[in-house]
């Protein structure tokens, strides 16, 4: 049994077999093969080689059938030759040093890669060769692991995913119904893996150094997403204890959700509060509705753009938006314009690396550069607005000029559609994300140009605290409870109230039951969070009167640092949600 500690990012317990992604980075334990098993290990390796050869041949046939231009078959022929060339030295190493075939393959490829990368490589020639070898290695590893774990085969069994880091495209490529948990080496509470895991209610722990090294595919693991722990090959007693915990946790979630579904979302004294859902994919809308969402407060559209090799065309986008509107059955849906750059790597575009991507060309800044993408998306959103209550929102606004420019482009697209005789909602509300300090501080000014504001706390906290949210080293400084953050949030809510512009919040904070009461006290009347968080938030807000919330809001602002704020709020929330705190 081995215990690994990391950052808890999505609560719950997951128990099952490990499935390790990123095999090219995988270092295998140098486990000796007992003498009498050498022949069996060699046979296992030969079977793996056969299956890889079949797999590559299959790829050659498929590629020839589908792609004409690039000579991929030729490259795969080369990979086939590499596999055949590897057989003799690997078998020799198994016999001579009694390495496992996995270790022998990994060692051989590592030697080749080392040789290839030992010289300068100005043209990138050697690094392309490295990619060829790691591709072959990956195939062999998968074939070898396949015999030791049932988690292969696109995850026939449910499994816990281990990876160094998961890109958004990798994350969505996974079959979500077969994932018991996520464990990654990188990332923080607001990384994409974390957000997605929480949205789906999948336990996740991030920031475990060497997680993919210490765990082999097929190991039994326990992911404790509440405490931030991963237990590898647990003993019987630990396993029993966690199985019981798992049942309790699932029961608590289900109970809260059942208990809250039919309850109105209002404070104890009957003030109506909007509870909306953040979604990433059109398919989540139905889930959001089942969790009691009164609408979609944030439809992140980036994922649609990661999924395809090329940016989705107007029709594809229009259909995705219309599906969400249909599934939400008349409830409002806020669509955020594409927010990429920085951490959201964009597979289909060409974003040159920046020195400071978080302070670089992202959000609306990027959209102004890519007018083609921006206009296509606006057309699709406007067209969808004929079929439901759509609101459009611009990300990463920092100045009034940007708002004006974005609106001018929107106006232009509207005229274009009108002249084409295409229907859309002429009254479509236009809002902005408040996530840059300049926008938060001057929210009263920005209000003059928009219909609503939505506070994006993930970025706001990062920018106010000057803390890169992906950097684990300084993650303790990422403090949503810091007095500066709380003051700024209150200021934005008050600015909106003075201008009679509705203010919503769509960051992680609005789904954290710890902050529900103070935010209510600051005047927030619209919370948008991942669907699974909604029942808990509802439970908390139904337990307080507005006056009590205001009192908490005043108290919390008197505290001097995040530590005291969290302590004070935890104490208070525990009374309402003893199961969670």
């Amino acid at each position, binding site marked *: 049994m081995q215990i690994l500690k990391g950052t808890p990012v999505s609560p719950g317990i997951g128990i099952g077999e490990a499935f390790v992604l990123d095999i090219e980075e995988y270092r295998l334990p140098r486990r000796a093969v007992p003498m009498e098993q050498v022949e069996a290990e060699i046979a296992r390796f030969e079977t793996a080689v056969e299956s890889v050869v079949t797999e590559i041949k299959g790829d050659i046939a498929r590629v020839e059938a589908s792609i004409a231009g690039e*000579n991929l078959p*030729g*490259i795969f*022929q*080369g*990979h086939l*030759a*590499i596999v055949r*060339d*590897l057989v003799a030295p690997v078998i020799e190493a198994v016999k001579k040093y009694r390495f496992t075939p996995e270790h022998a393959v990994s060692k051989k490829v590592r030697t*080749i890669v080392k*040789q*290839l990368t030992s*010289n300068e*490589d100005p*043209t990138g*020639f*050697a690094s*392309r*060769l490295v990619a*060829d*070898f790691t591709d072959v290695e990956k195939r062999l590893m998968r074939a070898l692991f396949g015999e030791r774990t049932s988690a292969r085969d696109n995850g026939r069994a449910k499994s816990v995913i281990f990876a160094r880091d998961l890109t958004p495209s990798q994350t969505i490529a996974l079959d979500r119904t077969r994932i018991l948990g996520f464990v990654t080496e990188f990332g923080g509470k607001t990384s994409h893996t974390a957000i997605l895991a929480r949205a789906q209610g999948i336990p996740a722990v991030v920031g475990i150094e060497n997680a993919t090294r210490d765990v082999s595919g097929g190991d039994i693991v326990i992911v404790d997403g509440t405490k931030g722990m991963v237990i590898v090959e647990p003993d019987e007693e630990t396993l029993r204890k966690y199985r019981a915990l798992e049942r309790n946790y699932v029961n608590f979630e289900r109970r809260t959700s059942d208990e809250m579904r039919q309850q109105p979302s209002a404070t104890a004294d009957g003030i109506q509060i909007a509870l909306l859902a953040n979604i990433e994919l059109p398919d989540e809308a139905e889930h959001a509705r089942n969790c009691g969402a009164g609408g979609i407060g944030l439809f992140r559209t980036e994922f649609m753009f990661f999924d395809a090799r090329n940016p989705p065309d107007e029709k594809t986008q229009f259909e995705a938006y219309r599906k969400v509107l249909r599934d939400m059955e008349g409830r409002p849906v806020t669509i955020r314009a594409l927010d990429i750059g920085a951490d959201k790597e964009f597979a289909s575009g060409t974003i040159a690396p920046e020195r400071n991507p978080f302070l670089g060309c992202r959000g609306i800044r990027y959209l102004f550069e890519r007018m083609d993408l921006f206009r296509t998306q606006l057309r699709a959103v406007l067209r969808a607005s004929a079929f439901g209550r759509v609101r459009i929102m611009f990300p990463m606004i920092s100045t009034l000029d940007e708002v004006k420019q974005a609106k001018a482009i929107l106006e232009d697209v509207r005229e274009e559609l009108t002249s084409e005789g295409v229907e859309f909602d002429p009254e479509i509300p236009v809002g902005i994300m408040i996530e840059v300090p300049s926008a938060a501080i001057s929210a009263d000014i920005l209000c003059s140009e928009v219909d609503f504001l939505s506070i994006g706390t993930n970025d706001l906290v990062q920018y106010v605290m000057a803390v890169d949210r992906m950097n684990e080293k300084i993650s303790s400084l990422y403090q949503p409870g810091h007095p500066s953050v709380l003051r700024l949030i209150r200021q934005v809510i008050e600015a909106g109230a003075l201008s009679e512009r509705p203010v919503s919040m769509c960051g992680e904070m609005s789904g954290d039951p710890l902050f529900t009461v103070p935010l209510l006290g600051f005047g927030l009347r619209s919370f948008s969070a991942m669907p699974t968080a909604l029942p808990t938030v509802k439970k908390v807000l139904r337990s307080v009167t507005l006056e009590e919330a205001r009192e908490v809001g005043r108290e919390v602002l008197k505290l001097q640092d995040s530590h005291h704020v969290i302590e004070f709020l935890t104490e208070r929330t525990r009374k309402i949600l003893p199961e969670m705190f």
Partner: protein
Amino acid sequence: MAEITLTVQNKHGLHVRPATQLADLAGKFKSRVEIVKDGHAVAARSIIELLTLAAAHGTVLTVRAEGPDAAEAVAAVEKLFTSRFGLE
């Protein structure tokens, strides 16, 4: 023994596809064919060894063959190089 000095003329160097062809070709001869780069010799019939040469465009290589059909082997390799492996 036969020997010749050649330059990699393919724009993308001796990458996977040309290396595959070269290894296939070398395997057809009885002679042992070697490719030498900066004094480092590898067996031409091994794709892995060929690739580890990391012979980019413009690299000068020596082709060396030893055995009964050494001259034919070297001539065939030369032909492959000058035809740019039929790729460009």
